[in-house]
């Protein structure tokens, strides 16, 4: 199936791609891998201080707001200190919610009042066609 000519074309294409990629800007590869699985339940660390107090660091727990890790100090059987050693941060949280939903099919005929959507994605959007679109109705209705 792959003719000699096609092979040469493919070789040329890949060479050109390689050269052009040298220019590639780092942000264009910003689709970071899902961070959700990064936070494994790390083994709890235990240290005993000179005063006999025991400090236990729990595993990082993945919450809907991001990973949270807590450190507890116990002295004489009493919890004397609780410290949060890892808070969810904004970036991590952004990635947390980046699992993609799959579009759900709908059947209804819709207008802006009943559409139950905020924005519309479509291939037919031009300034000429905009006035007729559901997006224009949404923008107009200010819902």
């Amino acid at each position, binding site marked *: 199936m792959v003719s000699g000519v096609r092979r040469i074309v*493919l070789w040329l*294409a*890949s060479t050109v*791609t390689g050269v*052009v*990629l040298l*220019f*590639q*800007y780092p942000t*264009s590869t*910003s*689709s*970071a*891998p*899902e961070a*959700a*699985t990064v936070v494994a339940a790390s083994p709890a660390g235990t240290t005993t201080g000179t005063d006999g107090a025991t400090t236990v660091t729990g595993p990082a*727990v*993945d919450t*809907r*707001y991001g990973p949270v890790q807590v450190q507890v100090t116990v002295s004489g059987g009493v919890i004397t200190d609780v410290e949060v050693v890892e808070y969810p941060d904004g970036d991590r*949280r*952004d990635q*947390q*919610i*980046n*699992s*993609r*939903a*799959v*579009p*759900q*099919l*709908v059947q209804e005929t*819709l*207008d802006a009042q009943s*559409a*139950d*959507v*905020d*924005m*519309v*994605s*479509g*291939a*037919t*959007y*031009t*300034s000429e*066609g*905009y006035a*007729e*679109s*559901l*997006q*224009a109705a*949404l*923008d107009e209705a*200010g*819902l």
Partner: protein
Amino acid sequence: MTAAPTRYVAHVMGLPVSLALRGRHADDAAGRAAWAGTVAVLQAADRVFSTWRPDSVVSRLGRGELALADCPPEVAEVLAIGAAAERDSGGAFRVRRRGPDGTELLDPSGVVKGWAAERAAAALRALPDTDFALNAGGDLLCRTLDPGAAPWRIGIEDPRDPRRLVARVPVHTGAVATSGTAHRGQHLVDARTGRPPAGVASVTVVADSLTDADVDATAAYVQGRDAARWLAGRPGRTGLVVWSDGSATPVGEPAGPLASTA
């Protein structure tokens, strides 16, 4: 609890651009300034990349009047994205192709819209405590800062009737792009055959970045009946293929590994 978002509309690049803002700066001077900045970035991209303006950088590059080295650096960036899409689509997607008269055309519009909107959204991202949904000619970029807040509810237009929806998808933070037959200035063809794809009416892709979503939507669309199969093999994407007969195929894995704990 969720107030209606504040909406803004402009027309840039021959395309309607809609913005919905909610939160602290939805309806104040900072929000309006960010919107103005977004529009300005889109207009600047149009001056560089428009294939409709004979004096644009890309038109002059295509006619051989400029060398790539003489162009602004974002031209090489966009062409690199196009080259990667060409590789990933097995050559179905190309920014350089033969025109009807046999001359080679440089048309990066399949890359530019998503890339430009992604770049233009930087001003919106800088708004603290403010969520946005930016719609650039049917391609969307969303942000929701509080994961407990309602996601943006995105409708996917019926390619046969722009007043109807074929599907809905909730998006907290991410991008949605749709490619089909009716983009102005886009004569979407399979670059391997030079012909429009058969069997497919539109392809919608949901991804983290709008650059990726837009390119993949076009690359899947031009592959015609292979669109859904190709898209299913793309990492980090979900989507919807609407076929010429009006039937539709959702694409993507069920919710990721995030459901556990909490």
